[in-house]
């Protein structure tokens, strides 16, 4: 037996691969099982939303935002209408703002549930996925009752919301929130202490706060390193400054901390929901006074809100016309994904899926 000849292996993962959460491709160079280089390739879902927006009026753009981060369409709706409202100095009726906040927090829970289920599926646990989608389904049902859609809601409008809450809807949300606390405990009992799970994610894909900031990470990806930065707290928008909630942070910046932060965020969202549902105004307008044709004054604005994935921003350049001159979305998935090649170098091939899943991307948003 002579010496075994070894050479580097170039391996293509994706674009159609279940663990890439969409059409995402990554070319990895392998030395044995260890990744020496990783090159992400994307754009398969690029639809030119920003270009299309330049020939649409603002109300027409709202459905396009649904299709960016399709797991969290409500927050996408909000960032656009919020930007336009701010530009025009519009006042949104309180009831509408409450409805927006409630759906955004429900959406955060739904989004984190999708992440939780699929992440465990990536790692090899099938049943959590079924639990997660069961509970997420209840949120989608609530949305369906509210606006007639399960995923692409097109619910918010400049100046308010399209539909008022139907009779009894608020009580249904209350019942959901109440039961979700117990479900969350079940999830922890089912997964969080599992030794195999912990050995797969503890210490994997770790980075420090300085790196996270340099890469512009946001959301749980940033908070897992201990940076307490949540736009709902630090740059409050909507009605978030009225409610009490904590910003969970991690310490080690690894996949485990990101897991813990996201799970805790579900609990904090439930807390916000409890308070919001309690204070929900029994009656009132759901649409503010809005001009017939929405023409923001000439100028520019950048607004940002905390989406389940991090900072989603909207930059509008208006020339005073009904269509934006330039509309740019700062998509958290796109920015967060940038750190992936750096994290993968030196890791084993099995950890690729763990790390990618831990970042929590939605390809519709990466490619926009």
């Amino acid at each position, binding site marked *: 037996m002579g010496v075994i000849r070894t050479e580097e292996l170039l391996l293509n993962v994706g674009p159609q691969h279940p663990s890439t959460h969409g059409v995402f491709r990554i070319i990895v160079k392998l030395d044995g099982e260890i990744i020496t280089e990783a090159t992400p390739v994307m754009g398969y879902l690029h639809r030119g939303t920003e270009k299309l927006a330049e020939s*649409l*009026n603002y109300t027409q753009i709202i459905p396009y935002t649904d299709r960016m981060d399709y797991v969290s369409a409500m927050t996408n709706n909000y960032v656009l209408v919020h930007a336009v409202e*701010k530009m025009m100095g519009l006042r949104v009726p309180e009831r509408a703002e409450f409805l927006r906040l409630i759906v955004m927090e429900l959406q955060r829970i739904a989004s984190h549930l999708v992440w939780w289920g699929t992440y465990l599926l990536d790692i090899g646990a099938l049943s959590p996925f079924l639990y997660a989608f069961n509970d997420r389904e209840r949120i989608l049902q609530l949305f369906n009752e509210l606006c007639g859609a399960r995923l692409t809601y097109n619910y918010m409008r400049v100046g308010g919301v399209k539909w008022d809450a139907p009779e009894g809807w608020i009580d249904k949300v209350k019942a959901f929130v109440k039961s979700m606390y117990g479900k969350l405990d079940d999830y922890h009992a089912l997964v969080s202490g599992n030794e195999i799970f912990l050995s797969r994610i503890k210490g994997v894909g770790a980075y420090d706060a300085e790196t996270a900031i340099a890469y*512009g990470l946001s959301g749980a990806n940033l908070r897992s390193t201990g940076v307490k930065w949540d736009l709902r707290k630090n740059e409050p928008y909507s009605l978030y400054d009225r409610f009490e909630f904590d910003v969970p942070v991690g310490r080690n910046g690894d996949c485990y901390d990101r897991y813990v932060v996201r799970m805790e965020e579900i609990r904090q969202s439930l807390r916000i929901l409890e308070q919001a549902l309690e204070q929900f105004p029994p009656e009132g307008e759901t649409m503010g006074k809005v001009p017939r*044709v929405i023409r923001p004054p000439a100028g520019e604005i950048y607004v940002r809100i905390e989406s389940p994935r991090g900072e989603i921003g909207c930059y509008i350049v208006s020339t005073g016309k*009904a269509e934006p001159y330039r509309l740019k979305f*700062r998509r958290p998935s796109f920015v967060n*994904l940038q750190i992936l090649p750096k994290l993968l170098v030196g890791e084993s091939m099995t950890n690729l899926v763990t790390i990618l899943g831990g970042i929590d991307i939605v390809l519709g948003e990466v490619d*926009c």
Partner: protein
Amino acid sequence: MSEEERKRPGEPEDDVSAASAGEQRTGTLEDGVSAANIGERRSGAPEDGGSAVSAGEKRTEAGAAATGAGTPRPKAAETAADGARTEPAAPARRKETEEEKAARRKAALEAREAAKAAKAAAAAQDAAAQAGSPGAAQAGPQAASPGAASAGPAGAAAETNEPPPKPPSPNQPRLDRAVQLLRELVADDAVESASINEANDHLPTLVVRKERWLQAARLFRSHEELNANYLRNVTGVDYETHMEVVYHLLSLDSGHNYAIKVRTDRDRPSVPSVTTVWETANWNEREIYDLLGIDFPGHPDLRRIMMPDDWEGHPLRKDYVPLDPEV
């Protein structure tokens, strides 16, 4: 017989869809807007846009009036739907009346605008009078809320009342300081202009000379007073006369925001890369290169990121013409 049979089950369905389509069109104001644009597309000619929009406007107005007068909604919806259905049948005739309508509409609009301006002036005067009284700050429900006392209402207040003696922006000192630092530590000519973007929470906005941008970026990143360690967003804008790259910076420690603009000419657009300062810039610059064709000298890996590698042209440019018009 069979035809009739086929028709009958189809009828209610048709009605439902027509009603819902009509409802969408007449339902609320902003849907009227979208209807207007549908109209615009149908009439085809882009230069006709203004008149088409106003025609759409009229239609919603009629719808709103009908619902306001207590007419059952489906009826109004039906008429609107009918209108929509006949629309493509007689485009030529419609266009004529449309132009007439547009002229009338324009006159009405101008009158309304004038009235509005007068009203706004009166409101501004009122607001100015109120600003002095202590109760004015608590007028809005937002201001009454416990934590909202910080940026939000203050910005809103500054926006709504714009009396001639404008109060200086709370961020003016920060802007002045940033300009001063750039002039002292980078170069005298580093800053082309500086302003406060009031609508955007009084965002300090600086236009930095292209040649000085890399140095200025380093200063923003490392100077302890500015400490802008977080690059939020990078946007490229094609202004037709020139190109502009906008950087939104944030200091995570102080929570201070800055917007930096770097301008470049349109024929050979190029802005120095700041990937060495903020890693975030890497993919953002690639995206801008891909979609707008701005070169970023110093970028480690400047290639397309969204479009295929062999794509011709840069789609977000205002003069972009697709190679294959079918696509």
